[in-house]
């Protein structure tokens, strides 16, 4: 009996001894996301920034859609590509010095904000519209807008629509969109305001919507302009001409980085990484000439790239953070052309042109 108890006691001691040495070991050794979550929660409690967490973890957890054409799409080899995916890489290059240190997490629209709140992702680059309620009630903070989108409609030229058509011209049409999104409400509001009656039909996803448009079950389809342009470029049958209208979208959809609120250091890092790509575009700085400009650029360029008088170290980033961004990922124009030109979206004349060219893309000065 006593011998038994003694054995048991020894067993318990041995197990707990190796157990305790072990658990500390585990948390430092493994780099999985849920592990990071706990670290993040405790750090937040101590008032430390997500910026330090990301640096110590060595990877950036970036929430993307994974099925948003040209913004974040899973490639045939399982890698993530697109405009949003590249902006995740921009942030990773700025904070960690390596654009490939991104762990992409595919999120549905429903779970995206929870994922930020629970710390599953550090940052959302998931074509998320900046709205007042999300900024205040939902507890998100928004970075600089990377893409100005807006809801538009698409119809057939043969039905009498043209680029200059207005919402008031669509009376009596069958209008289709995907279910459960704000696009549904926007078009209903716009039609009511224009005083026309429409028949609104919703489908599970936009692939189905487009197929119904092609088959003729829908007269008009509506969603964000960027998606419509992509559909027109890829799916318009020959012999038909699809037109997108009205020229001024019926809603404003500024898309950009989103992160948890009240973390100034992390917010600054993300925002200035985005601004750096815009300033580089203004200065004609791109991935091909960045090494040359490091010595021959103007004072602001050299400061931005980490030369004399640089400001990055003060905000917790490496001095050459933006040099890494430009050389590894590129400036705004490069990112835009690489991802969005192939689906037929061009910068000229759109809201996404540089402010010097009549667009809205603008960054505060780096000084």
């Amino acid at each position, binding site marked *: 009996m006593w011998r038994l108890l003694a054995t048991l006691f020894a067993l318990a001691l041995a*197990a707990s001894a190796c157990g*305790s040495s072990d658990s500390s070991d585990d948390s430092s050794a493994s780099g*999985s996301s849920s592990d990071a979550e706990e670290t993040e929660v405790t750090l937040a409690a101590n008032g430390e920034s997500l910026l330090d967490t990301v640096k110590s973890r060595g990877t950036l957890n970036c929430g993307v859609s994974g099925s948003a054409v040209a913004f974040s799409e*899973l490639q*045939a080899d399982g*890698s993530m590509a697109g405009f949003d995916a590249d902006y995740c890489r921009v942030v990773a290059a700025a904070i960690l010095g390596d654009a490939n240190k991104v762990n992409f997490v595919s999120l549905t629209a429903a779970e995206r904000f929870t994922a930020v709140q629970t710390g599953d992702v550090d940052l959302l680059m998931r074509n998320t519209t900046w709205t007042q309620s999300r900024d205040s009630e939902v507890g998100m903070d928004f970075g600089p807008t990377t893409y100005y989108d807006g809801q538009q409609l698409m119809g057939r030229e043969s039905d009498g629509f043209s680029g200059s058509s207005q919402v008031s011209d669509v009376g009596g049409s069958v209008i289709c969109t995907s279910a459960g999104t704000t696009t549904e409400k926007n078009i209903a509001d716009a039609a009511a305001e224009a005083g026309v009656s429409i028949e609104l039909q919703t489908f599970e996803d936009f692939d189905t919507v487009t197929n119904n448009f092609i088959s003729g079950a829908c007269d008009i389809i509506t969603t964000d302009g960027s998606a419509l342009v992509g559909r027109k470029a890829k799916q318009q049958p020959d012999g038909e001409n699809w037109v997108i209208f009205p020229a001024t979208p019926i809603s404003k959809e500024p898309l950009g980085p989103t992160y948890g609120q009240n973390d100034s250091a992390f917010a600054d890092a993300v925002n200035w990484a985005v601004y750096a790509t815009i300033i580089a575009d203004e200065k004609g700085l791109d991935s091909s000439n960045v090494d040359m400009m490091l010595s021959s650029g103007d004072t602001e360029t050299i400061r931005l790239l980490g030369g004399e008088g640089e400001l990055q170290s003060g905000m917790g980033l490496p001095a050459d953070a933006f040099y890494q961004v430009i050389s590894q990922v590129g400036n705004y124009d490069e990112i835009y052309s690489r991802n969005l030109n192939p*689906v037929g979206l061009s910068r000229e004349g759109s809201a996404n042109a540089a402010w010097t060219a009549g667009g809205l893309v603008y960054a505060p000065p780096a000084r």
Partner: protein
Amino acid sequence: MQDANQGSVDPEFQQGIEDRESSPHEIPSLPVGQWLRQNLFSSWVNSVLTLFGGFLAFFALRGVLNFVFSENRQWDAVRTNLRALMTLSYPESQYIRVWVSLGFVAGLAGLSAGLWANWGGVSVKRVSTWLMGTGGLLAVCVIVREPSVILGSDGKVVRTLEGSLQRESFLDAMVNRSSWWIAAVVLLVAGIVLWRRFASATHRGSELPVTSVVFLGLGLAVLSLWIAPYGHYAFISETKSYVAESGRTVAFSTKLPWTVMLALLCSFFGLGRLLQRSEYGGLIKGASNLLWLVSPLTLFWVVLRDPALDYGHVISTDLPMGLAFGALGGAVLWSLTRTGVGEAGRLVATMLLGFAIFNWVAAFFGWYPMLQKARISFLLLAFAALLAPNFMGEIAKRRQLVLGWLGVTALVHYLATMINTPSTVEVQSSEFLGGLGLTLFVALIVVLLSFPLGVLLALGRTSKFPIFRMLSTSYIEVIRGVPLISVLIFFSVMVPLFLPDGMELAELAAVLTGYTLFSAAYLAENVRGGLQSITKGQYEAADAIGLTAAQRTSFIVLPQALTVSIPQLVGQVISTFKETSLLAIIGLFDFLRVANSVIPAQSEFLGVKREGILLVAIIYFFFNFTISKYSQRLERRVGLGER
């Protein structure tokens, strides 16, 4: 009568089985006209039904063919995304691991097929009918398909002035499909030759071995990889560009591994045949059974292993800990089963249980940090100690308990070390395993793990002890009262929130746990159905010859009950396999989701969805049909439904 068959199979019964196997459905062949009159046009109702059915079949076939060969189909989307459909993000540099594990399975399958080479034969008549049927169907397909649309020199469709599509003439279409015609004619001729030579009255009942037919088919399929111009389609990761070259054979990295797989299958089959005749046949059969049991664990090791797995940690902590639990736990159990321990044993077991439960409670408050493995092991040890009085006395029984404990410890520690290891393979997205690989992996593991659990639950529910009955019944009813989706969401979202600090559960492990628990509840009910078919006489007879409860269950009751429930169990396997598509809900990329939402979102293949889904449907059908066929064979072999 059944009792007699349990022990030694009587020759007459054996003969009966062989008869059934060797000559399935011996239908005297009638002249075609007479057969048609008797079977399809026997009355006017039948004639109407036949014509109606024929029209339906014709339009269905025509519809499918026109869909598949339509000029609107973009099959390139599926071809270039094959890798994504199969494994999604699994890194190409680590593909060798997938092939190694597939090779392991191929070799083992070949070995087993060779060892149990009672595959019997398939009558030449059936082979030739099958060949002729396929050839005929192919010929019908070629005729029924709509003539193709004419493509201009720029590769675009040509339209007439009215804007309708211009199609080639029927004759042109037939000429252009000459390669299809040749294939159809070759099949037909081969079938007819076989029929003439071997199915005549003199050769009645002549057979080909099933295995050689299968190997011939597989060999031809692999050979076609080397010579048939399937085309070379790929996505080049470095340049982010798509390669689509028709008229070439498939890539070297595809044909070589499959050839090796076939070679492994064949050579191990031969080895199995040789070993079967050797004196160690029985021993090797046992070993191969054991290998099958171990192989899923090996696949864990090979496919999912973290390449940067810290062997230092394994050697310094995991291994000693497993050994310590095995040895010390074994010692505790050994001494607990001594005769004369008496009440002290119960006291110790209860204390152990208390200690184990305290550890779990403590974990939630973070008082007493230790590895999860230790907590689980303590709990298991407590249960084993509670069982100890049943194994008291003889050395052999005591040894059983200790060996059982060692086995369970080894298994639990192995799984806890391997499954719950976060993978650090360098992948660009979080979806490490996806596509068909994920689907098959989850289905396989869930079926394997839920089977023993389900049997235990069924036995518990039919047990005489109220506590077992109550626990099993409430478990089964609770789980069956909840949809699978909510179980999956519970395990992937809620359970991680309940876990104390420092404890984590990999997403895949969470899914496997939840799905296994769910599947086991349904399986238990299927097995219980089988248990209820066992008559009371069986139990009484077993008791009368002095079998213990355990012997009665494992030698008399379960074999009969499981045999009876084969159809339901196979149904369960099939539905488990198909329901893996629900993994998409909790964010995993099973291969239906890849076809349904990943491919249509690539800007190269925007909105191209139907092609992928058709392929997914075909693959699901292939697997499920194979399982179903195999189960029919199994049912015939055990004589189910014929007694």
